[in-house]
Every structure is written in C-alpha cells, then in structure tokens.
C-alpha cells in the first residue's frame, strides 16, 4: 500500500506541474492553514502571555512573540502555594499507578478475549462491550464505592476506571486482526507453550502498539478530574492538578489566596488571568511532552481498531 501511496504522490506532483497555481489550491491551503492556526494559536497565546513581564502584559495585544523578555514570576507565584506542588505529585502518582494497572489488566484481558474459539471468551467479550452502552450511573457508583470503603480515598481515582473499555476493544481487535496467526502457530508447532507464545511472540511484536495505548491512557488519566470531583470532593490534599486549574478558573477565594501569596513573596500583585494562564501551561506540559511520541500512531490504525481496512 505504501508503494501505491508514493506512486499516488508522484502522480500528484506531475499534476501540480500541469495545473499550476489555481484558486482551488489557494482555497484548500488557506482553509487548512487557517484552521490549523485556530487550533494552535490559543495555546501559543497563553504560553507567551504567561512568560511576558507585567509591564508588557498589561498593554494587551496578540502576543505573537515574547517581546520584552521572559519573566517567570507567575510560575513562581503559583508554585509557592503548597496546593500546587502537592497536587502535581498527586497527579503524577495517580497517572503512573492507574496507567500501569490499566495496561496490565486491559491488555491481558484483551489478548485472552481475542481467542474467541476458547469457551467463555465470547460471553466475556459481550459483557465488556455491554458496559460501553449501559452503566449503573453516577449514584449507583457512588453507593458502591461507599460500600467498598474507597469513597474519599486516593484509590477511588485509580481502581474504578482501570479496565478501559474503549482500549480493550481496540487492543482486542489488534490481537485478532493485526498479529499474524501463522507466527503463533509456528511457535506452537516448535514446542512453545501458550505461556511462551504470549511472552515471547505476542508481547514483543505488539510492543509499539502497547506503548502507544499506554501513552493514550496516561493522557486520559492526567486529564481526569471527574473521579476526584464526584467521589472525593472535599479532601484538598488529594486534588489532582487539573482540579486545581478548574478552581483557578472559577473559585474566587482560591485565586485571592494565590495572589496574596504572590505579594507576600515580594512579587507585584499578579492579574488573575496571567495566573490562570501559567496554570494552564503547567497542566498542558505533560501532554505536550508525550504528544510527539503519540503522533506516529495516529495513522497506523491503532486508533481505528474498530474499523476494518
């Protein structure tokens, strides 16, 4: 297919020579580039504003480049508040723990369920997919967590979501359709056991898929505030970072506390919006770091597990 694609591209190059510059192309490029800018500019604006010195910031403007130098005072202000550093650690711990647990149980289950000829697997499969569409809902979950004794503890952010249904379906389809059956059969004929097949054949050849799914799940976990909000809500020492951002956006008393804190460590009284922008950047940072690693997987079909080529 890739050879076809290159031929296709080559053909298009000759088309470019033949047709040359026309309004159709102008429209296509203008449209795509404008939309791309619309997607990225807000983040760029926030980044530049958050590092612009106060004197320059209050003039406003579009913040295309950091004119007037770089000043990290807003970051100093937010990280001098104990809640911020604490929640960073909570978020990191939660993300690492729930991603590992999630990968462990979701991928093993997906592999086993891809063997649909084994008795019971079809039923288990149906059970998993059913909850994609029908769940107990908010209050029944709340009641259950209360009964289990994990309500208002750290574990309510880790355990309940660890079987990721969407990635279960994607990984199951990957194991069913993208791992060559011949490889497994050859290993079995050569005297490898089922255990050996899993550890020596399946895991090594699915390594890049597993890595990609792990990153996707990590992003989901980093972004999760729902479990805190619904099932913990009053323990400030367990707040994930995204929740801190949420409070910076809507909670006036939190904002005042941070602003006063900034004054007490000798900074000028920062504008609320600038502090919000610095918080947004901190919440975005981990995602920006993993994004380049996710990028190659978008087109490779992992995200399209449910759709046949």
């Amino acid at each position, binding site marked *: 297919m890739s050879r076809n694609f290159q031929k296709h591209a080559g053909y298009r190059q000759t088309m470019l020579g033949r047709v040359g510059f026309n309004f159709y192309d102008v429209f296509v490029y203008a449209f795509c580039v404008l939309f791309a800018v619309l997607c990225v500019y807000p983040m760029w604006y926030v980044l530049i504003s958050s590092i612009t010195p106060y004197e320059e910031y209050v003039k406003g403007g579009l913040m295309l480049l950091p004119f007037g130098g770089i000043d990290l005072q807003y970051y100093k202000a937010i990280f001098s508040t104990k809640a911020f550093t604490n929640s960073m650690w909570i978020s990191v711990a939660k993300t690492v723990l729930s991603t590992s647990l999630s990968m462990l149980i979701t991928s093993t289950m997906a592999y086993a369920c891809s063997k649909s000829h084994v008795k019971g697997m079809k039923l288990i499969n149906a059970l998993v997919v059913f909850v994609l569409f029908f769940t107990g809902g908010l209050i029944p979950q709340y009641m259950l967590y209360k009964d289990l004794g994990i309500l208002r503890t750290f574990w309510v952010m880790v355990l309940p979501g660890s079987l990721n249904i969407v990635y279960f379906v994607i990984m199951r389809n990957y194991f069913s359709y993208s791992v060559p059956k011949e490889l497994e059969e050859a290993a079995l004929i050569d005297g490898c056991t089922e255990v050996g097949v899993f550890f020596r054949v399946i895991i090594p050849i699915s390594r890049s898929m597993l890595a990609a799914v792990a990153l996707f799940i990590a992003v989901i976990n980093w972004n999760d505030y729902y479990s805190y909000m619904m099932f913990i809500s009053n323990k400030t020492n367990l707040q994930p970072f995204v929740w801190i951002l949420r409070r910076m956006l*809507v909670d006036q008393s939190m904002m005042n506390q941070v602003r006063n804190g900034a004054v007490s460590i000798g900074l000028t009284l920062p504008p609320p919006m600038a502090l919000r922008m610095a918080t947004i950047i901190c919440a975005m940072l981990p995602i920006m770091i993993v994004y380049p690693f996710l990028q190659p997987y978008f087109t490779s079909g992992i995200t399209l597990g449910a759709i046949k080529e």
Partner: protein
Amino acid sequence: MDRNGSPARANGKRRASAKDMPLSASFFTRMYRYLKKYWFLYMLVLPGLCFLLVFEYAPMYGITLAFKDYSPRLGVLGSPWVGLGHFREMIADPNFVRAFKNTLIINVYNLVFGFTFSVFLALMINEIRLKKVKSVVQTAVYLPYFLSWVIFAGLVQVFLEYPSSADLGGVVNQVIIKFGGAPIDFLKRPDLFRGILVISNIIKTSGYSTIVYLAALAGISPTLYESAAIDGANRKDMLLHITIPRIMPSIAIMLILQLAGLFVSNFDQVYNLYNNYVLSSGDVLSTYIYRISLGGSGTNFELSTATNFLLNAMGLVVVLVANKFVSKLDVQGIL
C-alpha cells in the same frame, strides 16, 4: 446439564479433536483437560473480569434506587419501593424538560455543523499536495483533542473573558474595544452559549475525527485518478465522483454513531463552560443529573438515578438499532 449430555459434546467438538478428548470421558474429565490446555488464557482474563464485575456490574444493583425511596439508614436494599413515582416526578420537573430539550438541540447543532465540518476538513486536508504542509496541518489539528476540557475551558475563558478592574479581559474583547465597540460578556449570555459549545467542540475534536476519513482516503487506488484524468476529469470531478463515494461508508458509520449519541451530553464540556447565567440554554442532562444529586445543594439521589436509567435505556435501544445498520455496511461493528 447431563454429565455426558449433548450440549457439552456439541461445544467440545469445535476446537478439541476426538483424539484429545474422547467422548466416552466424563464431563469433568473433559473439562479438566480443556482447562489444562487453556488455563493460561483463563488466568489472563481473570483480573480484568474481576474488575469488570466489581466496578461495572456490581453498581447496577443501585439502579433499583430509581424505583425506591432512599433512606441512608436502611441502605439501598432495605429502602421501600415506590414504583414509577420518580419517573412521574421527573417528567413534571421543568428543569428536566429544559435539560432534555437543550441536550437534543445541542446535539443536533453538533451534528449539522460539527459533523459536516469534520468531513469537509478531511477532504480539504486530503487535497493538500505538499507533504510537509499536510503533516504540519495534521499535527496542529489533532493536538487540541488531547487537552482536558478543563484546560480548553481555560483557553475559552482567556479569549472571551469580560474586562474587569483587575484585568484586561479576553483577546476578543480587547480587539472589540480597540475597534471602538462595547465589550461583550460572552460567557454569561444564554443566547450565545450554544454557539460557544458548538464552536469550541469543532476546534477541539474535528481535527481528530478526520483520522477515520483520511485512513479511508489513503486506500484509494491512484489508477482511478489517472484514468479519470485521461477521460478529461478536473479535480472537482475527481472529488465528487471518486473521493467522496470512497469515504461514504466511513461517513455513514460515523453518522450512525453520532446519531446513537443523540441523548448523550458531553458533561466535561458543558460543566466546565457553563455557569448560573446560562442554565436556560446550556443545562444538559448529564449536568442536571450531577446537580440534583452530588453537585451543589441537591441530594435527590433517586431522581438522578431514574434520569440516568432512562437515558441509558434509550441510548441502548438507539445503539442496538444503529449497530444493525453498521453491520450491513462493509465494516466490522463494535459489538
């Protein structure tokens, strides 16, 4: 089941050969041999199955709350039954009716504008002929999808905020003021709220949803275009008669999936963008369910559960019907 009964035999014959498991062997012997052969797979499935049963299926007993009067003293199981009372209460609640209407309207907007936009964007990205530009555009438009709605709501606020004594206001209002207009308090205007939801949703997700279409487009054989060019087709003809027909199946699936979610509201998005000023046009079912139970001052657990149950049941019916249609197309459904 009969120890040597036919059901076990019928199941057994599919995989295991007669040599492995003689039919004369008892049911337990054959089960033992089967487990001995596949014990590893069953072991792999076990942890996941436990999590599934505990965290997804166990809460379902709580659905009975929808038909009960909950008292914390008696617990979920001990509380008295009240039949369909909560459903009647729900229909009579003007806030529920409002949330239901808003959910439908917002989803139809998303379908009409958001869905069409993502198909159009995919077609446009596909028409880009310079590979470098194409990959830069793709990198840019996929990015917002990975940000949390909290972050995205922050970005919306940064752009639309009303100026205050402490601050300049958002970029949009700065621009309006520069051109001599009066600043607009975008986030507190009920008439603008749905528009903000639809546009922010387009920016955040439409890039990512082009992936499905672009994957389908990459599979088109170039010979089709070549022969069309020889027959004198221009690029518009090719778009209409080659490209679009080829992605029709993908469009159909995505459309059906979107329709299946007609009663599903995006809690993340609405919760992070709305406030008390825009409830009239912005309150949707999921935020309603939250507000009357855990959020704010509400503690109406039964009504919340009843609403959730009704939505789930309706959604399930729509999904089953939709899956019927999807499986007719040349794709593998999700079920």
